[in-house]
Structures are given as C-alpha cells and as structure tokens.
C-alpha cells in the first residue's frame, strides 16, 4: 500500500515525500474507519434480512420518516448509530469478584485479532502511475494465507480469557465451548484453504487472485477457485461460520441456554468490542472467501483501465475503484448468504458440532486437497504451469 499512498500524496501536493510512518498510520485509520462503518451497515443489513425472512420489517422508526414510507429497505437507517451511542453511554460495570486483569484484557485481545487480520486482505489492484499493477492491501504479505489463519486463533485466547475471568459458571461454559469449537474448525479450514494454495503455488492472497484471473486450463471462466476446489469452498464457508460463532454454530453464545455465554458479564464498551469484533470477523471471513474462491476484485476477461477518460476530465485510479466495487459486491453477496443461513437453521449441539467438524469436514477437506493437487499437476504438465 506504501507505493500507492506515496504516489497519491506526491500527485496531490506536487512532490511531498511522506515520512516512513505515515502509510502505517493512514492504513490503521482507514481500517478502523472501515470496521466501524461496515459494522454499522452490516448490523442494519442483518436486522433487515432477519425481518424479511420473518415476514416483518425490521427497524423502521429511526431515520427520516419520509424515507421510511417507501419500502422497508429505506427505513431505520439511523438505528445502528443510535444503538452504538446507547452502548457507549451505558455504565461500565466490573463485577467485584472477577479477575480484573483478564476481564479487561479479553475485549482488547479480541479486537486486536479482529484488527490485525485486515493486513494482507487485498481489495483491489491498480497500475495508475506505477510500473506494474500493485495489489491494494495494507501489506500484501508473501505468507498472507498463513498469517490470516494464525491471527484468527488469537480469538480463542480472548474468549477463553473472557470466560474464565468472568467468574461465572455460564461464562466459563461458554468460553470452553467457544475454545473447543474454534479450535476444531480451524483445521478443516486450513486444509480447505490449502487447495487453492496448491493450485496457485503461493500463500499470498494477491497472487491467489491473479492466478484465478488467469484461468484454469486456459479458460478464464473456470479460473475462480470455486470451480476446481468446490468442496474446499463449501468446507471453508462452513468453518468460517463456526469460527465467527454465528448461528447455527453459536453454541458459545446460545442465548436460550447460557444467557449470553462468555460475554454475560460484560457491559457497555467492552460488550461492544466483542460484538464489533464478531461482525468484523464475519466480514473478514467473507472477504477471504471472495479473495480465495470467488476471484477477488477481478471479473473473468475484464481488465479496467487505470484511468477513465470522460472527455473533459480524466478519473485517476479507476481500476482501483472498479476493483473495490467488484470486490465488495462479491463480499456482500457472501455476507447475505451467511445471514440467510443464520436465520433459517436451528443450533447444533456441541457433540454434533465436534462430530461434524472432525469426522465429516476434515476428510472432505483432504479429498478436496487431493483433487486440487491432481488439477494443479495437470495444469503444470499440460498447460505450462501457473503464473504464480
């Protein structure tokens, strides 16, 4: 992201050289702003989808009344900002008997993990004023896939800490369940992601997208790893739902059984941290799915020009904006799928969850890996290898 930012500032100010720490701070700011805004939008979307599935309208009373009269989708736009303000203004209660350090550390850890995982996620690529197309991410790490999987395990630590420190049997049960669930579903997820890794020959998320754009066996339409690694995509999606503690895998937070699971004792901003991190993780998981299986910011056969000539005025960074639009459209489509699943299915019991993860998804992900290895070999031998 540094070259793009530096070039952008140079263009804007006529040659000002930014200090080395500026791109980092700017990325941090952008990511934080994105998390906040995205959470607001996603929560509103979730409640509207929930309403639609349940034959009702969802939040309608906040926001301009005139807009709400059109349809259910134009009402209640200010609901989430109002809820956020309410959460911020609530009293922060720390029960007397909790383990204070752990209690205060857990939301921080959870948010840290949620924030750090945004680093290698590529949302676009641009070749405006650059010598070669550069992937737009905070930092397109060479080990991007590995980094992402590693950071998501930090949530286990955070949830276990929250469950233990709360000094409450329900929280403890919730924390234990969450730990066991996330751990068990990490492994099929890893193997499911290995399929695309083998097909692309690289762990970098940017490379994965570029290989998908190039196509499989020379056919761009088959390029999206959803096709050769279909089982892997399904396994990854299921594991992703389990990782983020979303229904039908919301055992740790099952309201009907454990009140609120590991976050029972948390109030106000600390609770908001957990909630925000959960929504952020949901979106991150959809972003990873888009990047790895759905071709990221590319459409087969379409390469947007780096600047769009509109006659009197030329729009720079057009390929960046177009790529972002495509990427977010795909990511939100996956988000809609996840929401649909959430409001339709009942909850899995812990032992069924474990059986399903270990005895069904894991062998499936192995089969997927084999299939991908075979396809990659065919690609290598007959079609001259992959550009990775």
């Amino acid at each position, binding site marked *: 992201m540094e070259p793009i930012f530096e070039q952008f500032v140079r263009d804007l100010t006529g040659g000002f050289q930014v200090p080395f720490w500026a791109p980092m701070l700017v990325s941090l700011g952008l990511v934080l702003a994105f998390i906040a805004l995205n959470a607001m939008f996603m929560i509103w979307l979730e409640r509207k989808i*929930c309403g639609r*599935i*349940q*034959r*009702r309208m969802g939040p309608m009373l906040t926001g301009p009344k005139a807009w709400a009269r059109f349809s259910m989708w134009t009402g209640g736009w200010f609901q989430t900002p109002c809820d956020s303000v309410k959460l911020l203004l609530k009293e922060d209660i720390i029960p007397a008997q909790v383990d204070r350090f752990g209690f205060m550390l857990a939301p921080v850890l959870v948010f840290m993990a949620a924030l750090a995982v945004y680093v290698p996620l590529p949302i676009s690529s641009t070749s405006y004023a650059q010598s070669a197309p550069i992937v737009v991410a905070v930092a397109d790490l060479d080990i991007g896939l590995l980094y992402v999987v590693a950071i998501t395990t930090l949530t286990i630590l955070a949830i276990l800490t929250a469950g233990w420190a709360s000094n409450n*049997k*329900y929280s403890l*049960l919730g924390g234990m*369940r969450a730990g066991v669930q996330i751990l068990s579903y990490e492994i099929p997820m890893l193997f499911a992601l290995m399929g695309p890794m083998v097909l692309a020959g690289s762990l970098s998320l940017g490379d994965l997208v570029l290989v998908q754009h190039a196509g499989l066996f020379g056919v761009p339409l088959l390029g999206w790893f959803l096709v050769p690694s279909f089982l892997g995509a399904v396994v990854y999606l299921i594991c992703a739902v389990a990782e983020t503690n979303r*229904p*039908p895998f*919301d*055992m740790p937070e*099952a*309201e*009907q*059984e*454990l*009140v609120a699971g590991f976050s029972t004792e948390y109030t106000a901003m600390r609770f908001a941290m957990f909630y925000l991190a959960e929504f952020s993780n949901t979106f991150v998981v959809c972003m990873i799915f888009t990047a790895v299986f759905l071709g990221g910011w590319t459409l087969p056969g379409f390469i947007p020009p780096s600047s769009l000539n509109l006659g009197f005025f030329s729009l720079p960074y057009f390929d960046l904006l177009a790529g972002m639009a495509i990427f977010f459209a795909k990511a939100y489509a996956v988000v809609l799928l996840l929401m649909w699943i959430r*409001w*339709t*299915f*009942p*909850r*899995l*019991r*812990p*032992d*069924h969850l474990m059986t399903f993860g270990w005895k069904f998804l894991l062998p499936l992900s192995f089969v997927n890996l084999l299939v991908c290895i075979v396809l990659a070999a065919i690609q290598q031998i007959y079609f001259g290898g992959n550009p990775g």
Partner: protein
Amino acid sequence: MMRQFPANPDLTVEEFELNMGPQHPSTHGVLRLVLTMDGERVVRCKPVVGYLHRSIEKMAENRTYTQVIPVTDRLDYCTSMTSNYVYVMAVEDLADITVPPRAEYIRVIMSELNRIASHLLWYGTFALEVGATTPFIYGFRDREKVLDLFESTCGARLLYNYLRIGGVSRDLPEDFCERMLAFLDEWEPLIREYEDLLDENPIFYNRTKKVGFLSAEKALAYGVSGPNLRASGMARDVRREHPYAVYPELEFDVPVRTEGDVFARYRIRMEELRQSARILRQCAEKLPGGPYLEPQPLRMVLPEGETYVHLESPRGDIGCYLVSQGTDKPYRCKFRTPSFCHIAVFQHLVRDCLIPDIMAICASFDVVLPETDR
C-alpha cells in the same frame, strides 16, 4: 464428588452445581432446575417449583362460585378458556345444571381456538429453544389472528373470564363464524410452512430424535398426560375416552406416536393443529341458535357433595376436584394440572444429557409454571 483424573493424578475432577433459573431466558416460566454437572453432562436434575405459587386454591375457598372464575384464568394463562371450563364444568356437575346447546358449541369453539393459540405459542418457543429464531415470529404472528378473534368476543387477549356457570358470558359476534372460517382457510396451508422450517433439517433431527425418550410405563407412573403421553404410545385423549360437551358429535383423529422422543411430541402437536382446525369447521357448521346462558343466581348455593371432572387441555389432562358443603363458596377446590406431573418427570428424563438437550426436552413438554404452582 471429586475424583482423580486418570491420566494425571495431580488433577482432580469434580462435579459442580449449576442453577438454571429461576430467572433465565429460556425456562418456561419461573422454573428452577438445580443441575449437578460433570463438565457438560448432567448427572442429576432437581426441579424446584413454587416461585409462582399464588394460593389459587385458598383464594377459591373465600370467593363465591362465580367470583372464582377470573381466578381460574390465571391457572394456565396460555389456555385460559380451558381453565375456566374445567372449573365451570365441575360446578355444573355438582349443581346439576344443563347448559344450552349453543353454549356448549361456543365453549368447544373457544377451547379449540385456544388449543391452536397455545400450540402456536409452544411451536414458537420450542423452535427458539432449539435455536431457530424464525419459527418464533411465524407462530406468534398467526397467534395474533386467533387472539383477535378472542378479543372481538370477550374483550381480552389472554385472560378471558368468558365462561360462566350455565353457559358463556356473552354471545359470539355476528360475523364470528365467517371470520373464523376465513382465518382457517388462510392459516391451514401455513402449517405446512411451519413444518418446512424445521422438518427434514438434519440439525433439527440430531437435536430432537432419540432425545428425551420417555417410555409408556414411566409416563403412566409419573402421571403424564396429553400429547406427551400420546407420543409414548398410549392413545388417550379425554375428548375420546370421557367425552364432554359436544365432542361425541364431532369427528376428529387423535394422533399417536410410539417413539417417545422430542421429535414425536413435536409431530403430535403439529398434527393436533390440523385436527383442531377440522373440529372448528364442524362446529361452525353445526352451531345452533338459542340462548347462550342458563342464568344462575349471583350467589349460587350448591348442594353438599363432591365431584371430579377433567378435560383435555393443550398440555394434558386438567381436572377440578370440587367439594361443597352447602354454602355459597367452594369448600375445597383442587386443580389437577398436567404441568405438575410433567415437571416431576424432568428428574427422570434430564439425566446423562447435555445442556442443549435439557432445553429441547423442557420445551417439548410444554410446561407452564403458573399451572404447576397454582
């Protein structure tokens, strides 16, 4: 009870006690379950009731016979008509009062509508316990239509106080039957929608099949009745065995299943929804004209005697044992309620199962605490 962990003798494992309730988002009412847990598994379960004890039976002894009727409303608030009905039937039995035929039909219509409302509430809360949130809204939305029908008749949505000794307190509105038939026409196909949401879902199957098995012998020993007993293989429905009101003239089936698990109880209640609709259509057709009340003196004095009557509430077999000593107030009025026995069964059923199973089992029994605690 502490024991050493076999692999590492420095670690000890002990059971812990978890209190589920009385304030808990999911126990159906103010029920407290004291669970002894070994990790996630329940070793022992002791239900504690009495949080909702309002001494209804003592109140009944200090009120005249008509004044007791609103008190019986609060006995099982989900099926307030049935609670009224059992008490009123006991008084009529003791005083030898014949109820006009129109009133009998109206009572049956109200009981069956109440059965539909109660089962829809049960469906919503059962699905919610198992984790699916959408059926809750579906069930309640259609329940609102039934409550609208009730409101147009007696003015109340939940606690009706509609039945009187000798009939009902007011006649049905003129367009009641058309509206009821319109509701049934619109709603009966929706039962298929409710089933689609849950049936044939592997997650739901795993949660409910072979979970909470109750054998017929244990069910009888514990005094289980109603759909829970029919799910364990015993075909007993008070409307068939000891018919009351106009049930002998009505045709309906009594669904029975032999598996005795949570899924069987769920299926039976869904079938009962259809049967109730069938009964309602027949009643709407056969509803006679005439008086809706055989007026009684305000302060009735009943002859000395005792009686026990019972009828089929959506939860099971609700009964009223009435003792009169020739005064204008009941001497002893005991209500035999189905949920009392069903909660006692939890001690036996909730054993060696996980917490989610407890929720599924408790929800499948359709207990309401006010009925238990009276």
